[in-house]
């Protein structure tokens, strides 16, 4: 009996020892366990590009930028809650993070990776690089128009331990935008390209369209300097226009779909706090503009009504299918905008062709919005009516609903003339967006100190 028991001990000790030894520490603690099986450590350019484009469509020209400044521009009217508060020009650092941060973390960071990959030895892909540069310039351009100075030269370098990048002046950013677009045009024209542009949800890899887009964005930012550079701005704009978009087919649009609905649609669906503004609706009603039914929905009584400034008229028209349809594309740049730029430049230089460009611009806008030429309406209201800067800016304003351009143009030209909200907390409509809380908190040594009435460089 005793003997048996000893055997049992030995057996058990043996089994345990074997167990401990077989799972040796090194094997149990294999470093490969700490490799995430569900996340890739590298992906191709074509798998990065559509994410950037989607984010641009949603954020750069979506809720946190367009909705706010279109309320200020009285295209929309905030009738409730936060949108109502924004309508009295109350916006703080806490409100702009969701608009500002994706430009860096989602858009430009990943565009920088595409540009690096496009330069990989042996698989140099200037076309991919060019597309990324156009998108980088588009993002930086819209971003700086809203925020002024922004980090670029030291930005996106967290991986190199730069956690708080310095800010570049808007003047230098405008130089960067131009340089990026010039490089893009060179790269897009480069015949030796290894990897074709795929994953492109804007132009499906059509390089000619990307070249036009590069020139069109150049024109946008050239004319934005009209107050700063005078005729030189118009000349530069016209030079770019010459190689820019040639029809609505060239529009730089980000599409939306069932699983990924238009950002303003989603806002109206879940928050419902904005209506069409009376200023825009009254302009459209005055000429029975064919774009009206596409810009606004009828109210319960079957009328198109804009909510008067600060009236909180929740019964007013909701934004219509062109601005807030579930699959309405968001606009990074359009042919019509380009033609307005051309008309303004020619008008400013006293050149022939301003009238034609203006008429083409409105025609392009009406066709894009309504799907119909509406020639009779154009003949009755636009064609032949001598263009002035005021008329042009009104039409550009109508055309630019649900984009950031009316706000950029308003600060540059003061047009159209808008009245201040009765309960305004500022003496004028804000001249910029405030920097987000994340920059105040985590990049405090570099972020410029500004108020909502600090002019951006091109407005000074």
């Amino acid at each position, binding site marked *: 009996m005793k003997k048996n028991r000893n055997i049992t001990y030995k057996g058990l000790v043996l089994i345990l020892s074997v167990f401990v030894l077989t799972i040796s520490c090194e094997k149990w603690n294999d470093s490969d366990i700490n490799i995430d099986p569900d*996340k890739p450590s590298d992906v191709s350019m074509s798998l*990065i590009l*559509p994410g950037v484009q989607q984010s641009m469509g949603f954020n750069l020209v979506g809720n946190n930028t367009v909705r706010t400044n279109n309320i200020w521009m009285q295209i929309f009217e905030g009738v409730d809650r936060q949108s*109502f*508060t924004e309508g009295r020009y109350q916006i703080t650092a806490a409100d702009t993070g*969701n608009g500002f941060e994706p430009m860096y973390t989602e858009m430009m960071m990943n565009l920088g990776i595409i540009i690096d990959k496009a330069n990989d030895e042996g698989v140099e892909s200037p076309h991919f690089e060019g597309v990324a540069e156009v998108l980088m310039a588009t993002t930086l351009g819209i971003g700086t128009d809203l925020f002024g100075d922004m980090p670029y030269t030291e930005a996106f370098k967290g991986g190199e331990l730069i956690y*708080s990048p310095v800010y570049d002046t808007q003047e230098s950013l405008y130089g960067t935008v131009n340089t990026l677009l010039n490089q893009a045009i060179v790269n897009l024209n480069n015949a030796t390209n290894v990897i074709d542009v795929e994953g492109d949800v804007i132009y499906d890899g059509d390089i000619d369209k990307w070249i036009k887009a590069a020139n069109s964005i150049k024109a946008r930012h050239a004319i934005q300097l009209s107050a700063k550079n005078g005729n030189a701005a118009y000349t530069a704009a016209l030079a770019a226009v010459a190689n820019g978009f040639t029809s609505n087919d060239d529009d730089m649009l980000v599409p939306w779909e069932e699983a990924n609905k238009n950002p303003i649609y989603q806002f109206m669906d879940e928050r419902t706090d904005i209506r069409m503004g009376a200023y825009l609706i009254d302009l459209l009603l005055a000429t029975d503009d064919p774009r009206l039914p596409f810009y606004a929905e009828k109210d319960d009584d079957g009328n198109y009504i804009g909510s008067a400034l600060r009236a909180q008229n929740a019964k007013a028209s909701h934004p219509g299918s062109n601005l807030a349809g579930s699959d309405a594309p968001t606009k990074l740049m359009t042919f019509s905008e380009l033609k307005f730029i051309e008309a303004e430049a020619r008008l400013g230089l006293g050149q022939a062709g301003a009238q034609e460009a203006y008429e083409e611009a409105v025609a392009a806008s009406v066709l894009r919005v309504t799907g119909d030429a509406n020639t009779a309406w154009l003949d009755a209201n636009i064609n032949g009516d001598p263009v002035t800067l005021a008329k042009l800016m009104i039409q550009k304003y109508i055309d630019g609903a649900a984009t950031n351009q009316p706000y950029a143009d308003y600060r540059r030209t003061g047009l159209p003339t808008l009245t201040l909200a009765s309960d305004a907390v500022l003496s004028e409509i804000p001249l910029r967006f405030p920097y987000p809380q994340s920059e105040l908190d*985590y990049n405090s040594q570099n972020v410029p100190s500004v108020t909502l009435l600090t002019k951006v460089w091109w407005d000074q």
Partner: protein
Amino acid sequence: MKTNLSGILTLLLAFVVHISFAQEKTISGMVSDQSGLPLPGVNIVVVGTTNGTQTDFDGNYTIKASEGQTLLFTYIGQKETRKKVGAGNSINVQMEDDAQALDEVVVTAVGITRSQKGLGYNVQTVEAEAISVKPNADLVNSLSGATSGVQIVSASGEAGASTFITIRGSSSITGNNQPLFIVNGQPIDTGGGDSGTGGVNTSNRTIDINPDDIASLSVLKGGAATALYGVRAANGAIIITTKSGKNLTERRIEFHTSIGVDVVSHLPARQKKYAQGQNGAWIGGNADSWGPEISSLEYDGDTSYRWDPNGSLVPKGTGNGTPAQYYDPYDFFENGYQLNNRFSISNGTEQGDYYFSMSNLEQTGIIPNNTYGRTTVRLNGSTKISDKITFGANMAYTNSRSVQIQKGSNVSGIMLGLLRTAASFDNSAGYEFADGTQRNYRNGGGYDNPYWTANNIAYEEDVNRFTGNINLNVQFTDELSLVYNTGIDWYNTKYTDKFKIGSRAQTGGYLGEYMDFNSVFNSDILLTYRKDISDKFNMSATIGNNFFSDYNKYLFGDATGLEIPDFYQLNNSSANTTSTATANYRTSAVFADLQFSYDDMIFLGFTGRNDWATTMPQQNKSAFYPSASLGFVFSEIGDLKSDFFSFGKLRASAARTANIAPAYSTSNYYEAADGGDGWTGDDNGISYRFPYQGQTAFFVDDDLGNADLKHETQDTWEVGADLRFFKSRLGVDFTYFKNVNTDLLMPVPIAATSGFNSVFLNAASMEAKGIEISVNATPIRTENFTWDLVANYTQFTNIVTALADGVDNVFLGGFTVPQVRAVVGEEYRSIFGEDWYRDANGNVLINDDPTDSFRDGYPMNNTAQGLVPIGNFNPDWTANITNSISYKNLSLSFLIDIKKGGVMYNGTAFAMNKFGVSKRTEKREVYYNTDGSINFDTTPAENLVVMDGVYGHVGADGEVVSSGVANVTPVVQDQEWFQGQGSNFGGGPSIAAMEPADWVRLRDLTFAYNLPEIGDVIKGGQIYFSGRNLWIDTPYSGIDPETNLGGATNAQGMDYFNSPGTRSYTLGLKLTF
């Protein structure tokens, strides 16, 4: 059910009538202690009967007993003494001091049992019986107020809602701060319950434990107590041992049934005077209740107005005469019921023992269709393979199932739709039209009718869990033994998240399907050598090894926009997304434990553990964690012990413990591209994702990894004293502790302009220090009457001493404004928000500048300065007192729980202001003169208020101009105020919504009748009534302030349309056969 219950009761009562057969005589005598002094209050019973008495002040007693019976003498601190009744009538007894009586055995780290007497650190145990009769599904709720140093917050009163437990504050900035749970030596996964600002409250996985299975529960609070758990030790530990058949002499069957009712407790007060609309005009479908007085309106009976069965509201005299009325939306809440049945059978012999149990809990919440259910089965057994080898196994299966209802900041949230509902609208008059569209107070838009939410949106969760371990105990010699304990904790969670078409948060309908698998593996081997080196000098040494792994993987798919209504299947949509993620890590360790004791007086212990963890980079995988502790029982010195002073111990300990990085933090990856704008999107705020346009896409992960991470360090010090008086009838335990956490691992937020939102660093430091005092007393102990009292007091601070370079605060949770943050130099988890303009003395400025845009006579939100600290949820101190009183077979126990200090964001009330539904908006009536001044003749005087502050304004350059003169200008808090700075929506500062969240509450009350032995069948039992939160006194104006929007998360102190708390009443019956 009812019939059965009453049948059993009748039967029981019949047995209570007890007839005794005896030929009794009177015995008398004197009881003395070891030194011969008379002992008053000694309990004496005749064994096998209920006949008993106590000694008087001189130690004398008399009792009736028959020859051959046995008298049992018991007294605290004395050995039990038995005397057989012989022929004589006098029995004198000298009792012996019992060292063991003070020597409660507690289970400490890695299952090592030690005598409480020698511990060099604070360990508290919680009585298993008290846990078993409390009406809480999650045992963590039953630990509330049971010890010192432990803070527990339950998310809400919903069935299956989460709990959040921390011990001695927090030790991590953004990581887990909840303690390690060990069941029978097996670490178990207790995650879950972190719900964000919207969605639903989900359960913590501590809810999977059947509280009736618990035999003992120890709370290990400090580093020295947990040091043997190494990298898992930093947050303290809850050590649970489940029941066994050990020490039983015969088969024992226990049956425990209880039935309970939950009712809604506190709710925010609403105005009942004004109807839906704006500016005194009724507007159907309007968001707000700034309409005319309800008493001035009647219905028009227009049936074409589909939103109200009585038609539109019109001025009195112009409609059909049916008066408008106030509808109380709180009628929505129901009584919640719970039915809990528990059964166990156990037995033990020399050769082995077993314990088998089954339980089933069915619970409905106060919100219609909110349910929780749990079924558990457990089998614990052990057998002696030989004299020296014992083999045991414990296995438990749990099914937890719940249906949760949308809550919080969410247009489908129950309280959001319910509390915003206009005073003149009746939610209960139908939530769905025949065509399937929704009827709500917003005429179809806005927020879901709460009845719609409860009936048409459901989050159905089902968890199947198996936990098991085997253990082998080999006693090689009296001195050398080996314990091997290995086991697993496996569970699978699945949920479906269904939104009917027309739900406000998912207008096209929605289905989410989730499944995960979680696995914890643990193996401990301990070899222990005990040696009595001399009579007085004893030692024991243990060496051991541990392997541990933790694995989690989930799959998620969803469908947005359902084609076939009410058909919840992923294919029923053209918009599907999927996601999956894994988290897997392992650790291994070797450890040693050395204990010395001298003369039952000096107890010295050392431990050391070296851990290796896969989540750390190769060069820093390993780290060493030591501890030392000393217990000095100074009452053993000389003649210190007396009738007054029974026991005294001083203790001191120091330890280093730690935490490791989460899996995959050392390198950088790409992740599926998606994002949100902060306004729209699914439960996770995702508004855009892939697939999109037939493509898939990835972004570089915006959280930067770091290949230079090292282990965190937590250094803890603890000193304390355990003093007992009056033959141990009064005990006082005092502890001072200090935890210093350095190199805390966290994703440090960095400027997004760096291209990343965070980088993982050993960045932060934190410190917690405080005191814990526990008092045990038995003020009265007589033959039939006993009064026991246990009180605990806890006070500590938990300061963030450093974050990363250039970072002085970190987001923990909440909203854009306000939010909960960790801030350098402040108590952990500060609430950050906007504040009023104030002068240099901190006085609120009341605007005196008629030319600016602010209203005169009101304060102004200082948006220019951004977010500042506006309060903290952490209490200044907490205390609890449990009184247990028993008289004969009756006992009453009640727990009073006090929380002093700490504020909470009452965003619910702040938002209700804007909607004109909160009680404070009732005094809104005001008339102005043409110059804008108040017409004091027509404005009701009771509506006038003077806002607290000093006159001042904001100068041209944004500077504060203060007059320093106290404001005396009367104003009315009217619509303009509440739609302006008087609410969050109008741009008011969050500080206006901070309210004290103190409380004094009768947390638990149990009244029980202990059943005597009834015949040969029923050996005992109990009938009890148990209540929870029967009384709460709090200055908080909303729901029960024991709540948290995000559930079990570090971001505490937020109330934004949280679901309310409950009061519970339970009736239970326990029978032992």
